[in-house]
């Protein structure tokens, strides 16, 4: 069963949500889902761009009460 890992990058200015994801994606298995929590609006755009470039799967992004949730699946 694929697991879902939460990367809670709220309040992370350095190293920031995308860097946290780049580090965290290597810690899950191929097929696993990651949910990144971020309070930085920029990461809602930045993370999907990187995901597309590298070739993982973007499941979706949503915002609730000032928190952005970006869901991704590691594909390789």
């Amino acid at each position, binding site marked *: 069963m694929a697991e879902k890992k939460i990367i809670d990058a709220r309040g992370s*200015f*350095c190293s*920031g949500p*995308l*860097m946290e994801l780049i580090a965290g994606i290597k810690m899950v298995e191929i097929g696993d889902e990651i949910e990144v929590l971020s309070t930085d609006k920029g990461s809602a755009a930045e993370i999907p761009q990187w995901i597309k470039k*590298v070739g993982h799967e973007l499941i979706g992004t949503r915002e609730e009460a000032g928190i952005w949730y970006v869901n991704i699946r590691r594909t390789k």
Partner: protein
Amino acid sequence: MKILVVGGGMGGTILANNVARSLKGDVKSGKVQITMLSASDKHMYQPGLLYVAVGKMTPDEMYRDQASLLEPGIQFHVDPVETFMLDANQVKTKSGKVHNYDILVIATGSRMWPDAIPGLKENAEFFYTEETAVKLFHRIREFQGGKIVIAMGVPHKCPMAPLEITFMLNDYFLERGIRDKVQIHYTYPIGRVHTLENVAKWAQPEMDRLGITYETLFNLKSVDGEKRVLHSEEGTEINYDMLISIPAHKGMEVIETNKLGQNGWIPTDRFNLNMEGRTNVFILGDTTNIPISKAGSTAHFEAETVGANIVALVKFGVPVRKYDGKVFCFIQTGSEKATYAMFNYNQPPDPKAPTRAIHWFKLAYNKLYWISARGLL
């Protein structure tokens, strides 16, 4: 009450000293015992590695005897922990000794993990240990020209180090008079030259001015040492003559082997700094899994919070402070001026205009570090 501190680096040292000073009377009367277990009798000023790598500091200048930095009353042993028995409130050391504790603090730091990238260890130069920094200095001394590529993995400790080594290499080759024969090519994992936006806004034009080339969204995937080519996760390639890397980091092996946290990062409550699920185990510095800079200043501010809470636990039976995510870092903006960034979980960094005064303060900090480690700054 037995307080056990594992790790005698930046975080562990400040914490032990703060607690020993605040509980001086209790330590003297034997009501409180503070023990520190570390892996070395020396304490390294790690930013010194940058200077060693370009021949501006000797390795010896980076070290002080750890015992000389500690308040009287702290029992210090060079005997690294091998086994954590958290359910029994005990640790076992390399010498086979078992230490009991009421409160445990883990501050064992982090280490380079070049094995994560095929070909990296064999083909790159590093500078995050004394040995590799000395070797890098010899390599750049022998270098007569060509392309130097700087590449990093994430997470790595000290977010300013990639920029600092790049600008220091620029100065080094200028001083040697061969800067025109050396291409310095900087790479960075995300879409700008530094993770802090304001730092990136300053650093990118500075690189343009100095003729340092750069490439962003570059995450190393493998190194082909024979062809001298780097391959990235993003599908791009870069040729190099010399590769200098700050590889991805891990926590210490002992954290992994004891299954305290994946890759050696211990799940830590971001406000209380206790290990998740353990109210008498506190985690400090690089080895937490909190998504903030792995830096000495982080370890310092965390140590202040945990120290105050340990004192409160002894005196009131409850903790009194929460960590707000505070980080402070100097930003050298050229050889004569510097600024700083201060931020926390809620407040983004807002660096002020660089000044000479901050530059001098940063230089002074190279010495003030030892006062800071004593918990006096």
